[in-house]
């Protein structure tokens, strides 16, 4: 509390100590700002900005605004910048900016206008406040009971309405952030309940009522790579995942006598003429050399 109680920082004149503080902290703040702009890594930028903000907080205190100085350090440097870092870690931490500027002339123009703005502002301010004598917070008496009581009195008297409005603003912002950042999918409520789902399914909404056939039904293997076979020996196309391409396989030299297809009593030639050879797949499956012989995965 020594800092708060100490006499007249932010007085009508700039003390030597303050000047020393300014000439140390000011360049640091400038360096932080430049570093933030020029750092290619976003986390480094954030760190540079933290440096600038800390310097500014100290400068606030030197100017007789210890409350704002602490708020700057605690809220800004502490909370807000941590929020920045959180988001940086969530997104884009690894995306350091590329050196190549895609917008033609953007950097040159930005620099030009930035320097122009700086020159104009410096010229204006320097001209307008060339020989200003600060009234000093102590003299006016508004700092009568220290900085924090003074601000508190102003906030809860003259600026009460604005203060209340800012609280509403903060709540709204919190709600807005929740709405914007809330990302859970809502697919499970889309169909409107079990009954509606059943009716939709009976209407043929997902194209079939029953579940997809599992692999290997009536086949000689249970591997997921072996398609299901219908009772007549043909492949159940539904049992194959769409993302899996079937590759042509060599027809088996001869069918196994205990093949399930024998049950249908069809002539072999007809079965053999059915494009993709089920026999081949199942034969190789039954040969036990694993799942991927007849099908291949292609993305």
């Amino acid at each position: 509390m020594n800092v708060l109680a100490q006499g007249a920082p932010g007085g009508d004149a700039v003390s030597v100590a303050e000047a020393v503080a300014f000439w140390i902290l000011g360049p640091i703040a400038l360096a932080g700002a430049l570093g933030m702009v020029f750092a290619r890594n976003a986390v480094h930028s954030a760190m540079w900005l933290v440096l600038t903000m800390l310097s500014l907080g100290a400068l606030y205190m030197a100017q007789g605004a210890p409350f704002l100085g602490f708020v700057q350090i605690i809220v800004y440097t502490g909370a807000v910048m941590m929020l920045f870092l959180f988001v940086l870690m969530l997104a884009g931490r690894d995306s350091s900016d590329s050196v190549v500027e895609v917008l033609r002339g953007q950097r040159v123009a930005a620099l030009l206008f930035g320097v122009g703005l700086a020159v104009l502002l410096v010229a204006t301010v320097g001209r307008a406040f060339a020989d200003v004598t600060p009234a000093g917070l102590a003299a006016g008496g508004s700092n009568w009971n220290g900085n924090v009581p003074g601000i508190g009195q102003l906030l809860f008297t003259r600026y009460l309405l604005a203060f209340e409005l800012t609280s509403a603003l903060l709540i709204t912002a919190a709600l807005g952030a929740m709405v914007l950042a809330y990302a859970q999918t809502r697919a499970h409520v889309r169909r409107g309940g079990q009954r509606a789902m059943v009716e939709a399914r009976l209407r043929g909404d997902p194209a079939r009522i029953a579940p997809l056939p599992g692999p290997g039904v009536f086949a000689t293997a249970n591997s997921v790579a072996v398609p299901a076979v219908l009772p007549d020996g043909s492949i159940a196309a539904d049992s194959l995942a769409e993302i899996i391409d079937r590759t042509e396989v060599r027809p088996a030299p001869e069918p196994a006598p205990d093949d399930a297809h024998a049950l249908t009593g069809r002539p072999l030639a007809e079965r053999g003429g059915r494009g993709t050879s089920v026999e081949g797949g199942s034969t190789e499956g039954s040969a036990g050399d694993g799942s991927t012989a007849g099908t291949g995965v292609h993305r």
Partner: protein
Amino acid sequence: MTPTAYLLLSALLFAIGAVGVLVRRNAIVVFMCIELMLNAVNLSLVTFARINGTLDGQVMAFFAMVVAAAEVVVGLAIIMSIFRTRRTASVDDANLLKY
């Protein structure tokens, strides 16, 4: 030395922040540059409070901080949702709203 030096520092910081907004492409860094500009203005407000000898400037700076905090919350949420849908945080990639 007079408090004018603070104002000049504030002007320089503001200009640097503005240039940063223009040249950086990462939306979060752009946002940080905006924060820098806000801070520069806050420094001016504090200095004006001192020059005028009243606390109103500091109260203004206080409100600016509150509003900046709210803005940061919403802005970062927007950046998050953009990032979630487009897998990028570059402001140049969100350029669908054009001719």
